[in-house]
C-alpha cells in the first residue's frame, strides 16, 4: 500500500470575499491519470498552482509526493514536472537547446533525443522554439516538463485552443506518459479529453467538487436512463405506438419522438417489431446513453 502521490484535505483559497476554492478533498494514486474537469473560473488553475507550489492557500492540508508544496525545495522539484497553462518558448533557443538548458537543472535528467522523440519533435529538433506551431510548442512544453524524469506531471489545460488534429497528437503524447508509469494531474474543460485520457475524473464547479468517478460512472452516468430517438414515418403518430412504448415517451413534437428507459434493448426490439409489421423504416433511429458532456453540463450548470 503506497502513499497517495497527491493528497488534499479541506483545501480553501479565498481572495477577499471571493472563495475560489471552497474546501476540496482529492487523493491521487501512483500511476494514475487524473483529470480535473471544470468550466473556466471554477477553481481548477488555483488548485493546480497551489499543488505546484506557486500559490499559497488559505487553509487545508496538502501534500504532493509527501511534501507540502508551499515548502517544496529543489529535491522536491526534481520529482515534479509542470506544463503551465501559459508559458511561451525560450527565445533564441532551438528545441534541442531548450531541452539542454532545462536538463542541466536536474540531477538525473532523461536522455534529450529520446525525450524529443517521445513528443514527436524529431524533425523540429534544430528549429528555433518560437517558430514552432502552437501544437508543437505545447509538445515542447511537455518535453521540458518531462526532461527531469519526474514522478508526477501537472498538465494545465494542455490543448486549449488547438485544432482537432493537434489535440489528437497531444493526446497521443499524454497517453505515452501512462506507458512511462508517470502520475498525471490533468486539468481541462473538454469532457472528451478527460474521457479519452483519464482513469478518474473529478468535476469542480464554483470551487467545490461536485462529482468524482471513472469516465464511465461519473455523476451516476452508468445508472442514468438511455434515450431512444427516431422520426415518425409519414402518416403515423405517437399514439400508434404499442402501449408499452407509449408509456416511455419523454418528448414528442409530432415528428421526432424520444423515449427514455433503463433497459433499452427490449424496447428497441418492440419498436422494430412494430415498424417492420407495418412495412416502415426508421432511418434515423438513435439509441444513446447520456454522454459525459450531458452529465458534465448538468453538474456544472449555474443555478438560475
Amino acid at each position, binding site marked *: 500500500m503506497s502513499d497517495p502521490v497527491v493528497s488534499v484535505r479541506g483545501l480553501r483559497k479565498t481572495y477577499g470575499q471571493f472563495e475560489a476554492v471552497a474546501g476540496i478533498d482529492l487523493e491521487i494514486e501512483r500511476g494514475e491519470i487524473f483529470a480535473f474537469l471544470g468550466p473556466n473560473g471554477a477553481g481548477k488553475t488555483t488548485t493546480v498552482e497551489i499543488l505546484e507550489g506557486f500559490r499559497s492557500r488559505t487553509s487545508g492540508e496538502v501534500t504532493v509526493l509527501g511534501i507540502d508544496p508551499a515548502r517544496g525545495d529543489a529535491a522536491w522539484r526534481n520529482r515534479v514536472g509542470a506544463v503551465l497553462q501559459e508559458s511561451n518558448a525560450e527565445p533564441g533557443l532551438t528545441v534541442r537547446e531548450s531541452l539542454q538548458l*532545462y536538463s542541466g537543472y536536474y540531477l538525473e535528467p532523461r536522455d534529450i533525443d529520446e525525450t524529443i522523440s517521445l513528443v514527436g519533435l524529431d524533425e523540429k529538433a534544430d528549429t528555433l522554439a518560437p517558430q514552432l506551431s502552437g501544437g508543437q510548442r505545447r509538445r515542447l*512544453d511537455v518535453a521540458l516538463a518531462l526532461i527531469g524524469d519526474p514522478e508526477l506531471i501537472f498538465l494545465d489545460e494542455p490543448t486549449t485552443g488547438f485544432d482537432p488534429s493537434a489535440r489528437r497528437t497531444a493526446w497521443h503524447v499524454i497517453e505515452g506518459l501512462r506507458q512511462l508509469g508517470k502520475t498525471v494531474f490533468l486539468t481541462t474543460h473538454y469532457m472528451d479529453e478527460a474521457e479519452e485520457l483519464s482513469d478518474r475524473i473529478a468535476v469542480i464547479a464554483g470551487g467545490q467538487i461536485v462529482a468524482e468517478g471513472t469516465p464511465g460512472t461519473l455523476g451516476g452516468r452508468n445508472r442514468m436512463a438511455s434515450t431512444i430517438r427516431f422520426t415518425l414515418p409519414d402518416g403515423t403518430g405517437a399514439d400508434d405506438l404499442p402501449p408499452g412504448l407509449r408509456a416511455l415517451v419523454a418528448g414528442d413534437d409530432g415528428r421526432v419522438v424520444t423515449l427514455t428507459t433503463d433497459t433499452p434493448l427490449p424496447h428497441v426490439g418492440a419498436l422494430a417489431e412494430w415498424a417492420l409489421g407495418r412495412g416502415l423504416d426508421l432511418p434515423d433511429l438513435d439509441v444513446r446513453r447520456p454522454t459525459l458532456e450531458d452529465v458534465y453540463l448538468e453538474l456544472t450548470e449555474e443555478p438560475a
Partner: protein
Amino acid sequence: MSTPASQGGVALVLHQARFDLRGFIRNRQARFFTLALPLIFLVIFTGIFGKDTVDGVPLKLFYVPGISAMAVIAASFINLVISITVLREEGILKRRRATPVPAWVLIGGRTLMAISVSAVSVIVLLLVGRFGFHVHLPARAIPGFALTVVVGSITFCVLGYAFSTAIANEDAAQPMVQAVMLPLYFISGIFIQPNALPSWLSNIAKVFPVQHLAHGLQHGFLAPTGHGIVWSDLGAMAIWAAIGVVVALRRFSWLPKAATG
C-alpha cells in the same frame, strides 16, 4: 551522470549564462541596441566633435569613455529590463521556477551574461577609439577602468532587475528604459561634455548613477597620473546597487503581471 546541477552552483550559473548569451546573440533587436548603437554614436560624436577642445582637452577623450558608459548601460540595464520583462510576461520565468534551479542561479547567469556583453562592447569601443581616433587608455589606468566597467555593469544589472518590476508588459519595456536613460545620457557627460552644462543640471546628474559611471570611466583618460579608480564614483554606484537590491527583493516577481492582476 554528471549534470550542471550536480556540479554545484558555479557550474549551474555558467550553464545558465551560456544559454542566456546564445539567446541574446540570436536577438536582432538586442544586438542592435546593445552593440551597434553605441558604436554608431561613438563614430558620429567623435567624428563631428572629437577634435574640438575644451580647456585644451580634445572632446574625443570624453566620448570614448562616455560612450563606453552608454554601452555598459545598454548591455546591463536596458538589455535586462527588456529581456526580463519578456521572460516574465511570457511565463518563461515561472516555468523555470517550476524546476529545481535556484533563483540566484537564474539571476546570476543573466547578470554574468550582461557583464560579458558589457565587456565585449567596451573593448570594441576602445579598439575603435584607439585605431580610428587615436584615443589611448594609459596602461596604468586599465585596472581602474576595468574595475569601473564591472562595478557599473553589476550596478546597472541590479537596477535592471529593480526597474523591471515597474514595467507592466513587453511593449512598455523599450520606451520606458529609453525615457529614463536618454535624458540622463545628455546631462551625465556622455553626449555633452560636462563642463558645458549649467551647474544646476550637473548637480542633478550627480544624484544618478549614470554620471558616476561616465565620470569614473573618463577619469582614466583625463587624469595625468594614478590608477584610474575614482572611489567616490564606485561608492555612489554601490549605493545605487544597494537601493536596487532592496527594491528588487521587495517587488520582484517571477510570475506574469498580466495573470496575477
